[in-house]
């Protein structure tokens, strides 16, 4: 049985949604408060969405300095699987596990809507249940999702299949029109070099039950079990 830990910060609001998705797939899940100094042995660590510390200073900046994060960082460096969704992605960037920055959306508005992403690489622990070029309908809800990084790092991401998903339209076109937030090259999520750490702005946990929406996001959790 896969063991997972969902880290909870003051202001997290998607922590229980992820827990529901994980439990549906029989993960043995623990909710870990940010003040804890020890992390239970986990096959998967999730940094959930929300507004940790009210987005003070910069989104994710304060959470990145919390007690439990030093455990998460050392687990990540040892190769544990870490999934950061939305605010979790922002925290992964602020703590240095992922490179780049998430800037304010180019349109200056908080965006909450369903969008499409295209699977550009399924060779990873996170996306192996999806087909290449598959289009998923997922939900985004963020104010700072505009991914930015240096030219050198962007080339590294593109050349090494470290960008598993990009924003696209219903037909799979990846262009300015299908870019909701100004993210460079329509990036919706990125890996670290070893592909054990994934940060993504869309919420797979919101698309994991037909009662709520669709099951587009379920494949990600199923992939992790594969």
């Amino acid at each position, binding site marked *: 049985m896969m063991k997972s830990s969902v880290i909870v910060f003051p202001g997290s609001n998607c922590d229980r949604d992820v827990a529901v998705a994980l439990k549906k797939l029989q993960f043995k899940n623990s909710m870990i408060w940010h003040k804890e100094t020890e992390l239970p042995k986990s096959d998967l660590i999730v940094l959930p969405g929300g507004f940790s510390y009210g987005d003070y200073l910069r989104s994710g900046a304060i959470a990145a300095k919390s007690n439990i994060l030093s455990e998460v960082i050392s687990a990540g460096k040892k190769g544990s699987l870490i999934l950061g969704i939305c605010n979790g992605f922002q925290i992964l960037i*602020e703590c240095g596990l992922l490179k780049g*920055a998430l*800037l304010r959306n180019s*349109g200056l508005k908080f965006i909450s809507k369903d969008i499409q992403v295209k699977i550009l690489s399924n060779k990873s622990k996170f996306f192996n249940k999806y087909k290449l070029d598959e289009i998923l309908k997922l939900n985004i809800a963020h104010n700072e999702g*505009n991914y*930015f990084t240096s030219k050198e790092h962007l080339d590294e991401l593109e050349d090494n299949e470290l960008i598993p998903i990009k924003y696209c339209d219903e037909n799979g076109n990846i262009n300015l029109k299908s870019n909701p937030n*100004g993210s460079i090259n329509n990036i919706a999520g990125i890996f670290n070099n070893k592909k054990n750490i994934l940060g993504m702005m869309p919420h797979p946990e919101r698309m994991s039950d037909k009662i709520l929406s669709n099951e587009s996001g379920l494949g990600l959790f199923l992939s992790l079990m594969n």
Partner: protein
Amino acid sequence: MKFAVTITLKKDVLDPQGKVVGQTLKNIGIENLNSIRQGKFFEIDLDESDTASGEAKVRKMCEKLLANQIIEDFQIKKI
């Protein structure tokens, strides 16, 4: 001993907020405006008598938390 820290976005990082502020200023009739970049300001009071060591502490604060050096630059000034 007090220090002022100014944090600004690096030159090549897009600043949508600054752009909108600049456009709004133009709309209300401000002339000869070339550009506006928005940043953050911190006023820091330290229990410290040595300027060099105070400044070193503030620098550490900037590097560790106040600024994200991938996208931001910081300036420290004793006030």
